[in-house]
């Protein structure tokens, strides 16, 4: 089943890379939207149906923590699973993002297989 994916990252190159790695992994994508921060992402979520969100943490305007918190406060958006994609692999940070509402966490550097496994794990848990 192909999924509608949203990639949120302030680096255009990183957004391109994540999309590329998703394709390389064999994860089926129906549509892929991207946003440079949480503000842009929330605007797009009001207009498009999204199955899963991949977000960075360090972003201007609205960072990943605030973005996940806003999603959790929203009646509809809180149902969309979020996977954090970050260079920060400290236990405190991972614990904090999961406590805020993220369902998955992928640490850079990651391989296509690692990303796919996490996306499938999260979607599998949501759809179980």
């Amino acid at each position: 089943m192909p999924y509608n994916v949203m990639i949120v990252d302030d680096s255009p190159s990183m957004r391109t890379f994540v999309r590329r790695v998703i394709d390389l992994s064999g994860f089926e994508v129906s549509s892929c939207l991207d946003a440079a921060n949480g503000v842009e992402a929330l605007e797009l979520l009001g207009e498009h149906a999204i199955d899963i969100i991949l977000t960075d943490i360090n972003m201007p305007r609205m960072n990943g923590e605030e973005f996940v918190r806003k999603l959790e406060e929203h009646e509809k958006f809180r149902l969309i699973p979020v996977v954090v994609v970050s260079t920060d692999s400290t236990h405190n940070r991972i614990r904090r993002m999961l406590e805020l509402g993220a369902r998955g966490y992928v640490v850079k550097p990651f391989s296509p297989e690692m990303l796919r496994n996490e996306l499938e794990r999260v979607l599998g848990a949501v759809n179980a």
Partner: protein
Amino acid sequence: MPEISEILSTATSDVLETMFFTPVIAEAEAVGASPVAVLAARLSFSGAKQGTLAIRISAQAAGTIAASFLGEEAGEPPPEKIRDVICELANMICGSVLSRLDSEAHFHLGHPELVDPLELQSVEGTSRSFDIGDGEVAVLLHVDART
């Protein structure tokens, strides 16, 4: 606990190979300023330790790494994309190094910025240079001694 230079080496090789599909051919201690270095990026970090991590990279290596990262097979990406990729490379190496230094600590990473490569000449700290075949990537880590 491994030496900082060993952490720098492992983290950089891992990032280059996994995220940039660029294997490291050889490495050595980085000494002085490379005459072919044309791009440099630096970011600061704070938390359990504070300091800066910087990379300097030759033009050819920057083009190769950016093309590989973005999957552009038709040639070298435009300069603005190369600059963005180099900043992302610095960001990823810094995150990887810090989590290897102390995975239980909390760190805040600043925003990577391009800097004049000559600014890095006076930076004290641990440095390693990586030969990727199409040029050289040097990584310099400065940790504030008070942290």
